[in-house]
């Protein structure tokens, strides 16, 4: 065995799958494997980090193992279906079409196509890797006979970079007028249910803190949902209190985590939920709806509510912000969670799982 090459639909910076791919390549190379990344599309910032996926055919060598970072539909899946090499599926979850189809048919169609590709690839895979038991269940349901749960590789150090002073100044300036700052990080899409955060913020302002604010950080691919969200906030008189930041730099993200008081999630569908881990790393308390993989990711490091009732979410946020002992206990549990996801440690676990399929390397050329 000589190489473990990764395939990915798109290699994008500051994206969970893109970051995981590059970190896993680093871990594989550190362990002595040859490893390259092949992608259907590569972001300008990462040109040189990957090759076009069809180019693999010209460099394929006996003994190669191919690892597919599965997160959406892609021509790469159909390409891999025809390849004879052993295949490892690293599954990052696909949002169920029914969660988006009422709003955006394009993404729903892509999700349905991705699930079709998963069903085709899973029985053919020698190993399925998942970063949560929730994702592992999807893999097994799709026909993966051998699976393993290994931590997602996430570079939490990007949040320890100096935070963007403009973001910190803006948030701290707002605090002079009082009010807590809520934070949620994730794409503004129906499956993340930011509208439930708006309801909860309204309830929280009504019951406890009339100056509280909500910061929504993340890309806004659904114009229809974003427009509905803005109109809803306006209906509730929250147009100045709900701030949609969009996609931000690492430094700005660090600023949001540094200056926010609580991380709140009402997402209906998370395969893992890296921002939850980032909130723990930043030491801010987490209040989250117990859906999909969220309970496993949060564990004892946050308050989990069973339903998105605005009053219940507001009361949970109020409790966590007024109970220092609770915050300290959650923070301690969060530190343990973050330690479990240390990059070097997680990388070795992922490589060990892959080695079970790829076998011992015979050409540790690095």
């Amino acid at each position: 065995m000589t190489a473990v090459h990764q395939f990915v639909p798109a290699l994008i910076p500051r994206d969970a799958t893109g970051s995981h791919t590059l970190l896993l390549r680093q871990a594989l190379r550190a362990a002595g494997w040859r490893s390259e990344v092949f992608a259907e599309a590569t972001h300008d910032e990462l040109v040189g980090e990957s090759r076009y996926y069809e180019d693999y055919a010209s460099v394929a060598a006996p003994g190669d193992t191919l690892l597919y970072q599965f997160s959406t539909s892609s021509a790469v899946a159909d390409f891999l279906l025809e390849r004879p090499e052993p295949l490892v599926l690293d599954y990052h979850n696909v949002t169920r079409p029914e969660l988006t189809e009422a709003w955006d048919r394009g993404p729903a169609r892509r999700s349905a196509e991705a699930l079709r590709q998963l069903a085709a690839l899973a029985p053919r895979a020698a190993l399925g890797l998942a970063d949560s038991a929730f994702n592992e269940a999807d893999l097994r349901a799709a026909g993966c006979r051998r699976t393993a749960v290994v931590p997602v590789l996430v570079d939490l150090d990007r949040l320890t970079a100096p935070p963007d002073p403009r973001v910190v100044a803006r948030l701290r300036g707002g605090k002079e007028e009082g009010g807590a700052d809520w934070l949620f990080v994730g794409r503004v899409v129906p499956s993340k249910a930011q509208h439930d955060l708006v309801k909860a913020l309204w309830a929280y302002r009504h019951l406890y803190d009339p100056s509280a604010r909500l910061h929504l950080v993340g890309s806004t691919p659904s114009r229809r949902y974003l427009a509905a969200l803005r109109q809803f906030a306006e209906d509730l008189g929250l147009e100045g209190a709900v701030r949609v930041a969009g996609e931000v730099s690492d430094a700005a993200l660090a600023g949001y985590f540094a200056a926010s008081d609580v991380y709140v999630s009402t997402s209906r569908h998370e395969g893992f939920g890296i921002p939850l881990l980032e909130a723990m790393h930043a030491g801010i308390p987490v209040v989250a709806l117990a859906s999909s993989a969220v309970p496993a990711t949060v564990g004892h490091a946050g308050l989990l509510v069973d339903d998105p009732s605005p009053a219940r979410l507001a009361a949970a946020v109020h409790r966590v912000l007024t109970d220092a002992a609770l915050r300290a206990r959650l923070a301690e549990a969060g530190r343990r969670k973050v330690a479990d996801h240390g990059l070097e440690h997680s990388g070795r676990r992922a490589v060990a799982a892959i080695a079970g399929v790829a076998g011992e390397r015979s050409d540790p050329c690095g």
Partner: protein
Amino acid sequence: MTDVAEPDPEEGGPAVEDGDGDDAYLAQVMVEIDEEVRRKRAELPARVERELDALFLEHSPMAGRGGDLGDALRLVETSAFIDPVVPVASKRPAGALIKKSLRTANLWYVGWVAHQVSQFAAAVSRSLRLVDNRLVELQRQLDAVAVPAAPVVDAGVAGAWWTEPAIDALAGSTGRVLHAACGDGWLVVALADKGVDAYGVDPRPGAVDGADLSATDLREEDPGEHLHAVASAALGGIVLSGVVDGMTAGQRQQLLERAADRLAPEGVLVVHSVSPAVWHADSAPAEVDLAPGRPVRPQAWTLLLPGWNVEVVPGPNAQDYLVVARR
């Protein structure tokens, strides 16, 4: 097979969590948060939460509001035509002229493709319209033979003999407890007084109007439809009173299966029912004559709830009884 990758022994693995201690501590915090929610209900009634839901739905697309097939077909039909004559307006000088030239040059080709796509879309929408018409006709025929909804008969009143055993069975519930049919909320209030997070639904029009809805969470809703919307294992207890008596065997089975799914593993199901003889008496209300089903005898409940630990508490004079079921 499932390989759960083990922590690297050289690193000592993840830190050991104080799992049981954390579980108990966080469970207690959540109980206190639920108590806080109840205290705040006067300031934020459940009715207002429902108004928030309805307000957001106004901004949701038609499909998100569960629009019917006819609405969806109208959308399909309006978008079935592909217009090959693309707009040529431009902000740049001569832009419109260039675009128009390109359009003219390509129109024979684009128009041919667009015509076929439009034909296909129109054929699909015509087929769907035929399906819709057929469904409407089938619905009309089904309505003629449909089993009517079971009426709520004798749902109980404050001070009923079975209040105390029902509360005893539910006093330790850690999750929310649903009472159907709740009437004016007499049992919800009694459960709340014992520290139980209870709420109620009642399908009878106006049944909950007399209650103080700012203090208690009561909803005018069909119990079956309500349970359909509740997540699996979300409830700590369910009380059914006056609900199952008039149901057909199929309706009753469906409701009980749904209730069993919505209860947490340690959840308790409490059913109050009358004896069949009561419905045959001249003093029975007229609704019983129109009900599609009849009450069952107490001994039937072990068959209705197989695998459950069923306890039957007989009422005075053998007029009614209470079923307490646990898994």
